[in-house]
């Protein structure tokens, strides 16, 4: 069986990583390549770089950064943030991104999933889904959770798979940032409905939380930011502890 993946997520603004402290001996915590290399060295299985720049200059700087990441990092990495057209996807593929993640733009224009998958393959397309519980239903939100849509989570994730997404990156906006754990039942239900891998994001506060979502939540991978950035646990130590809990990880 394939190992469960641990994926640190790095936020990049105007070409520099934001957050990310506490690496002993790391001179420049803003250097996204150096930070990524540290995580890879600790045993990260993949990396996600999320561009949170709001400007055109920031986007261009990000493209140059992706090229440097591709040259220097020897594990797969996904880039996301602001990808709204096939041209955006092509530009990032051309500089060496292994995968792109799309979110709001796919909700606005679902055909974008088909177009990118048809041109570059499903393995290149990660559909990021931000969901929120409203009444008895899980609904999709866009723009970082600020806009609620009428799309229902399970229907949208399934549609994404059928349109050609290779993975689903699911964040519960009710849990994101709380550090109280993931909604494992939700992840397990989604896993039952889909045949493609699911990456759990948002809510990890402890090793136990991550172990839960990978076992009872049946997620294929866990993405986390703050527990790594603030040095609470290294990727390597997390994976050793997961392994002790009989979760198959790459050590």
């Amino acid at each position, binding site marked *: 069986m394939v190992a469960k993946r641990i994926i640190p997520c790095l936020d990049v603004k105007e070409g520099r990583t934001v957050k990310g402290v506490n690496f002993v001996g790391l001179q420049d915590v803003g250097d996204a390549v150096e930070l990524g290399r540290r995580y890879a060295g600790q045993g990260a299985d993949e990396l996600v770089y999320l561009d949170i720049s709001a400007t055109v200059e920031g986007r261009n700087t990000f493209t140059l950064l992706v090229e440097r990441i591709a040259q220097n990092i020897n594990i797969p990495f996904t880039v996301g943030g602001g990808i709204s057209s096939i041209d955006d996807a092509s530009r990032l*593929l*051309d500089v060496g991104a*292994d995968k792109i993640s799309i979110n709001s733009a796919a909700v606005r224009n679902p055909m974008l999933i088909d177009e990118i998958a048809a041109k570059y393959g499903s393995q290149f397309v990660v559909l990021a889904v931000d969901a929120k519980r409203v009444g008895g239903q899980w609904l999709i939100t866009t723009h970082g959770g600020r806009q609620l849509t009428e799309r229902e989570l399970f229907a949208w994730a399934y549609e994404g798979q059928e349109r050609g997404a290779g993975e689903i990156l699911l964040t519960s906006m009710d849990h994101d940032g709380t550090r109280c754990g993931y909604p494992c039942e939700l992840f397990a239900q989604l896993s039952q409905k889909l045949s493609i891998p699911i990456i759990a994001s948002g809510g990890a506060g402890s090793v136990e939380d991550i172990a839960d979502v990978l076992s009872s939540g049946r997620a294929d991978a866990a993405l986390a930011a703050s527990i790594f950035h603030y040095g609470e646990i290294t990727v390597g130590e997390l994976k050793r502890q997961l392994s002790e809990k009989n979760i198959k990880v790459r050590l």
Partner: protein
Amino acid sequence: MIAVVDYDTGNLRSVCNALGRIGAQYCVTSDIETIRAAERVLLPGVGEASSAMEKLRERGLCDVIKGLTQPVLGICIGMQLMCRSSEEGNAACLGIFDTAVRRFEPDRESGVKVPHMGWNSIGSLHSPLFEGIADGAFVYFVHSYAPDLCDECIAVSANGRTFAAALAKGNFYGTQFHPEKSGDIGEAILRNFLKL
């Protein structure tokens, strides 16, 4: 010089970056004479098998590749094209390796996902390609189709069913996984290829 065969199947960047990291000299080419003259040949590839075969054919590369005598390494689709056939688009392939490429079946109960994506361990390693690499090493896979076990299998892995993770016959080698994305282990495998 390593010739990285360009037959228009998408992204060659990852392979070139990895060769750059280990200090190998390479060129990206579809020129028949350049490929024949190279010390080593690398056949990468992502995409769909039958259209990738068609692209090899259009460029007149099928017989060229079959006739090579220097070390040749196919990666992912590149290796699948070196097999007898692929279920993907019912493609007749080059037939260097005597095995068929078949699709994985997802199984929700046991958690078998398709595509098979991520790090998996390889075992039963027996080839100079894996010198210094221990059974159980993890490498990175991204694929929905895989070759059946056969006599030319030099590494096995499993995703629901057991499959050939690497193949070798004479000067021809192939890996279903992506050494260019498999961290330090992957770079060690590429270095071994340079020593063949």
